[in-house]
């Protein structure tokens, strides 16, 4: 599955995107944040406060409890500050 990072999530993780094989017990966006946070120091830093991180599955905003099965691309980013 393709994972993309933006803004300070991207800066902390240290990459814009990556392809990852997920274990079968990672079924929601929230699970995925917990799983990513355990991958290393930079991920732990990026996901230290999952409440402030927003997610999109296949370019639509989703809540942390959203299921990720069938997703092609999941993006993580801070709250938007456009406009």
């Amino acid at each position, binding site marked *: 599955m393709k994972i*993309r990072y933006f*803004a300070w999530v991207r800066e902390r993780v240290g990459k814009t995107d990556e392809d990852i094989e997920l274990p079968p017990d990672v079924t929601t966006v929230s699970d995925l944040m917990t799983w990513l946070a355990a991958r290393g120091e930079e991920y732990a830093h990026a996901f230290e406060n999952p409440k402030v991180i927003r997610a*999109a599955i296949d*370019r639509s905003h989703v809540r942390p409890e959203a299921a990720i099965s069938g997703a092609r691309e999941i993006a993580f980013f*801070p*709250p*938007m*500050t*456009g*406009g």
Partner: protein
Amino acid sequence: MATIRLQREDFDAAAEAAALTRGRSDIGAVVTFTGICRGSEDGDPIAALTLEHFAEMAETEITRHVEDAQQRWALLGVTVVHRYGRITPGENIVLVVTASSHRGEAFAAAEFLMDFLKTRAPFWKQVESAKSKTWVEATAGDDAAAARWEKPRG
């Protein structure tokens, strides 16, 4: 009937508004909103803003909100242009133009689109000052402004 563009270059608000009304006589009201990079943030002078964006999602999200606005109000034209990249004080950031027969609809749709661009369009602003680069934090005020438009859930 809608123009949506994400671009690095500046835009010409007047030309965009003129393009919406040219050759038509059904439009009675045009509202143009231009968002501009200010020279200071919370009292501290800034050197520039850098706007990062998630391009494919931004197009999808803006299109969805433009379609929502078209269903809510009788619009005769909508243009949204959002810049990304490095923008210095005094430069344009975002443009929303709405056209309608009557002013109420044009005003409401322009405010609606701006409130959603602020809170739902995947753009992130980083402030560059003489001493640091910091990401702008989302504000509760912007969330409250966007929440005004939420439809009651059935």
